[in-house]
């Protein structure tokens, strides 16, 4: 019974770490007391994302348009804030075409995929720390 409680707590902790890492890039590592890693992750992902929307404007976040689903999926992995940006740009309010659109999409989706790597890494680190005491 006690072991079941511990296992449930650990699963909940892993979910919280994953969710935090998605909400704010680097926050997952921050709650694991990996401050240097979290600062590096936050600054790098935010800069990459901001460069993307600077080049192509916020119009590159086109959740309801002709953008391929895998680009939208990768962009959303940056943070749920991308969904808010997507609401703002819905209906073609910020048109962007050609090379700036492509470069902007490449930057924003790469930032999202890098954040996905960080989310998985934070959850894995949390999992390893959870099983370390059990191993003795």
């Amino acid at each position, binding site marked *: 019974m006690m072991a079941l409680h511990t296992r449930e707590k650990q699963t909940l902790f892993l979910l919280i770490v994953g969710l935090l890492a998605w909400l704010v890039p680097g926050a997952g590592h921050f709650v694991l007391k990996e401050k240097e890693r979290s600062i590096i992750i936050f600054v*790098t992902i935010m800069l990459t994302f901001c460069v993307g929307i600077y080049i192509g404007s916020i119009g590159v976040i086109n959740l309801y348009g002709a953008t391929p689903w895998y680009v939208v999926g990768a962009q959303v992995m940056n943070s749920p804030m991308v969904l808010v940006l997507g609401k703002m740009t819905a209906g073609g309010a910020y048109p962007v075409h050609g090379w*700036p659109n492509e*470069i902007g999409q490449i930057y924003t989706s790469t930032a999202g995929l890098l954040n996905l790597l960080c989310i998985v890494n934070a959850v894995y680190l949390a999992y390893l720390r959870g099983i370390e005491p059990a191993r003795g």
Partner: protein
Amino acid sequence: MVMDAIFIIATFTEPEKFGTNPQSMLWLLPLVAAIAIIYKATKLPAITAANFIKEAAILFGSIIVFVIIAALTLHAFAWLITG
């Protein structure tokens, strides 16, 4: 101060204007730097400034060298096929 903030935010609502010239390939460099930094931030067992910068720089250089080799190989193939 407020006007400055508004101007900065406004730059994110209009796309930059640049064409498909060879110089635009340089946009690759910041992206490769981001990939190298994030990869090393997740893989290094301990983060120290000197070691982290060294490792990220080595990975950045390796990716750039690989991209250049791939580009030269593709260029050679295209030259062989099209004459």
